[in-house]
């Protein structure tokens, strides 16, 4: 019988000064190829959530690739959306930093993505952690 396991990737670190938030996204995206190690039909269902300072990873118009030659977190978030990963951003933390939905990456429409970022209360992120089999806190 096929087994699904949900893994929550929670990001509360700032980008660029450390590798942590980038690795959260690359590991979450690796869920798309994990089947090679699993039994037939078994799957990992990832959910990515940005909390605390981590919400600043989600700002639009990041130019790290142009200026430093390093893929931006924006690029990784768009790839996650393109691959239909569930991406959540903490509403209270966005408000704390004076940000709105217009300030952050809400979709990856220009590269063919169909799902959107969900801006949700922290309690919803706690529920996602609760329903996950494992929580990976980056």
């Amino acid at each position: 019988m096929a087994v699904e396991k949900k893994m929550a990737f929670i990001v509360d670190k700032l980008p660029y000064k450390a590798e942590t938030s980038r690795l959260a996204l690359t590991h979450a995206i690796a869920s798309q190829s994990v089947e090679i190690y699993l039994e037939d039909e078994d799957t990992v269902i990832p959910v990515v959530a940005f909390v605390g300072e981590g919400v600043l990873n989600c700002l639009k118009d990041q130019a790290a690739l142009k200026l430093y030659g390093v893929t931006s977190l924006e690029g990784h978030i768009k790839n996650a959306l393109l691959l239909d990963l569930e991406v959540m951003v903490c509403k209270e933390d966005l408000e704390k930093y004076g940000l709105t939905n217009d300030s952050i990456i809400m979709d990856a429409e220009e590269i063919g993505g169909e799902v959107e970022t969900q801006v949700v209360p922290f309690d919803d992120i706690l529920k996602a952690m609760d329903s996950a089999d494992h929580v990976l806190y980056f």
Partner: protein
Amino acid sequence: MKLGVFVSQYTQTNTTLERIKADKLGIILVQNAVYHAGIKENGKASPILDKDAEFFALTEDLQSRGLSPDNVDGKVKVVDYNDLVDLIMNDYEKTIWI
């Protein structure tokens, strides 16, 4: 959920820790977070210890820093690596490291 939270840093504020809720919450102080168990700032215990949780501190990390396991805050149970294994494998369903 039964959640074990490993805290490894000595900071007075942590927005995740402040907001986190669980049916059973364990806060496991390791590395520099053991100062929360063994040091009082201006005579006051660390605000982390006000959280509704069970508290543990790793004896090896207390002793490494010159803190006596006999002098930790009364809310904190001193544990060793064997105990940590039991906390992870038996007492809590999930663990996070912050």
